[in-house]
């Protein structure tokens, strides 16, 4: 069944949520808990401060269907430390991740070959040793998967990913006012 009686899709796809929260202890665990409670595995979770040092921007990716995504957005939005939540539409989003690959590179031929791969993908070599090369690559998962596929031929010793960060394309921002945002703020207002 692809949709229920109300025409809501029940297909699970990757969703990107952008969330602005107070930069305070305990907030991240409160946010993470919400996803645990709803039974969703967080695919990617990144955090960093914004223009305002007191506010942290989280980019959270989960695989979920429409109605659960809606529920998670709603439950995030009503939390007091949360300033703003936006579900970023797949067609209007720029997503990037930085990945560090440490690869076996014992001979100079191999090193050169790996450096060429890095150049093709506009990555850079950030560390060299007698036996290894460490590359950094920035991209979405398609590009990262492509690099990884090639580097596996040389032997990847370890890799580290930052997790996805994302922004909306064009002039739109997470701070744009909307009726729904106003509705959530209503409940948070102190009477």
């Amino acid at each position, binding site marked *: 069944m692809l949709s*229920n009686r109300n025409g809501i899709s029940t297909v699970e796809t990757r969703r990107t949520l952008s969330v602005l929260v107070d930069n305070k202890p305990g907030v991240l665990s409160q946010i993470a808990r919400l996803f645990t409670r709803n039974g969703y595995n967080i695919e990617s979770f990144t955090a960093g401060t914004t223009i305002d040092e007191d506010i942290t921007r989280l980019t959270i990716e989960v695989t979920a269907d429409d109605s659960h995504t809606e529920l998670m957005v709603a439950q995030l939005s009503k939390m007091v430390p949360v300033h703003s939540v936006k579900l970023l539409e797949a067609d209007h989003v720029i997503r990037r991740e930085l990945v560090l690959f440490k690869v076996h590179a014992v001979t100079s031929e191999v090193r050169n070959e790996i450096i060429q791969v890095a150049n093709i993908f506009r990555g850079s070599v950030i560390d060299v040793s007698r036996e290894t090369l460490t590359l950094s690559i920035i991209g979405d998962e398609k590009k990262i998967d492509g690099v990884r596929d090639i580097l596996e031929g040389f032997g990847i010793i370890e890799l580290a990913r930052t997790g996805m960060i994302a922004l909306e394309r064009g002039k739109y921002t997470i701070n744009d006012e909307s009726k729904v945002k*106003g509705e959530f703020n209503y*409940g*948070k207002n*102190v009477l």
Partner: protein
Amino acid sequence: MLMTGAKILMECLLEQGVDTVFGYPGGTNLNVYDELYKYSDKIHNYLTSHEQGAAHAADGYARSTGKVGVCFATSGPGATNLTTGIATAHLDSSPVVFITCNVSGKLLGKDAFQEADVIGIMMPITKAQYLVRDVNTLADDVREAFALARSGRPGPVLIDILKDVTTQTAEYDYLPREQHYAHGTLGDLMMRATTSALRMPEPDRQDIEKLVAMIAESDKPMLICGGGVTRSRAHMEFREFARKLDAPTAITLMGGGSMPGDDPLSTGMIGMHGSQASNRACDGCDLLIAVGCRFSDRVALKPSTFARNAKIVHIDIDRAEINKNVRTDHHIIGNAKVVLAQLNAMIPQYDHSEWKRYVFSFPRETEYDASSSALTPKEILSTISDMMPEDTIVATDVGEHQMWSIQHFHFSYPGQLLTSGGFGTMGFGLGAAIGAKIGNPEKTVIHITGDGSFRMNCNELSTEAFYKAPVITFIFNNGCLVMVRQWQELMYNGRYSATILDRGPDFIKLAEAYGLKGSRVSSPDELKAAIEEALTEYKEGRGYIVECTVAQSELVRPMVNGGTHITEFLLN
């Protein structure tokens, strides 16, 4: 003025107008209790038998008075004993501030004696949590905690103060409550809100106009009175709305009292144990307006067919409730009191006599057969309501006695019925009743319970006796956990696994052990005599226990199974 953290806490409670706290001392909150001792002429502490009892008492106090309840406990086991009480308050949106103390900063995270990650434990069951590690933020945190507990959709808030913070000193300046919103972190929070009218934002005008138009098109409107009406004390506006709309009105468990049970428009409870009238009206209406209700699985048993012929309109203060359980056609976000007042000013008087005739052709109350050997629930409850003052506060536990009470009592004001609706906490009733009595000393408070529920927290009889906060307890004793047994009878071929309570205690002897009188009754005449004695004792400031023998075979009717359509009655 320079003060210790413990003293700042007391001053902050006074700022909030708190004169009553429920709680239990321990190692980490010794300083708080020491300060409480010095403030005992202004703030009265009620020591319970168990922290859970204190949590329920603070909750019952909050629900019955509309004020914020306050509850103290120590670290570790003190705090974890609160959890059931906190979760109960959370699911029923009851404003209670729980203040626990934790071990000192240098011991934090080292598995110290009586240490628990209280913030971590309480996160899922509170509206907000504050770990106070710095005495300089204490006053601000307390002010914010109280504001959050009572604002928007009310709920429990936890403040966990490190023990060393209670002895450290900081500057404290008195700040009247009206000014809290303009200061400190609470002020920042208020600045963040986008609407300009911060204190009581206006609901969206267009949303209201849309509903007015929907009402004009409807021939068969129906209302649901939910807990939000009770919490915002919007009962007068709601009643006026129902009368102008001339619509049958179903009441949820949490809405009890906001719409009088005996109002000509009231169809009784809706859902699993809802009346025929409520459930059939819900199925037949063309417009369903639910106010302050969250369409729980005990109301919207099968969300996909709930009110299947109707446009559903949801009025709620919490945007996260919209489309959570039931997909709606329209919603209005706002405080029920404000939204309903605006609607009332805009809608004309309607006449839906024909539709009402149809709805009220179905019974709104269940007829229970008389029995010669035991009392029927109906007999007990009508005798109680005949003999008790009209404004008696009724606290219940959880089980069949709870459903019978809701079905038979006609509550007439919000805060009159205290019951654990969302969390279904057995053992809630006695603590809640004591809290209600302390908050409403002029009213009579009764506690309806079952033998199963009562055994859970009957230790609070000592609290009731000591503080002369009398409660008349009616135990529906059928020797079993009959709510569970009912499911076993209907769905498990009568395999009564672990539901038969063929064991003590002797409740009358138990009452005596706590210095209270009681009597066991099995006929209406005995019941009347017992209530008379209870009322005499009550006047003397003593509680009483009436143990009513009820047949094990009495079931709650009607019943619709969870997940099935609302009119598929298993029992009628």
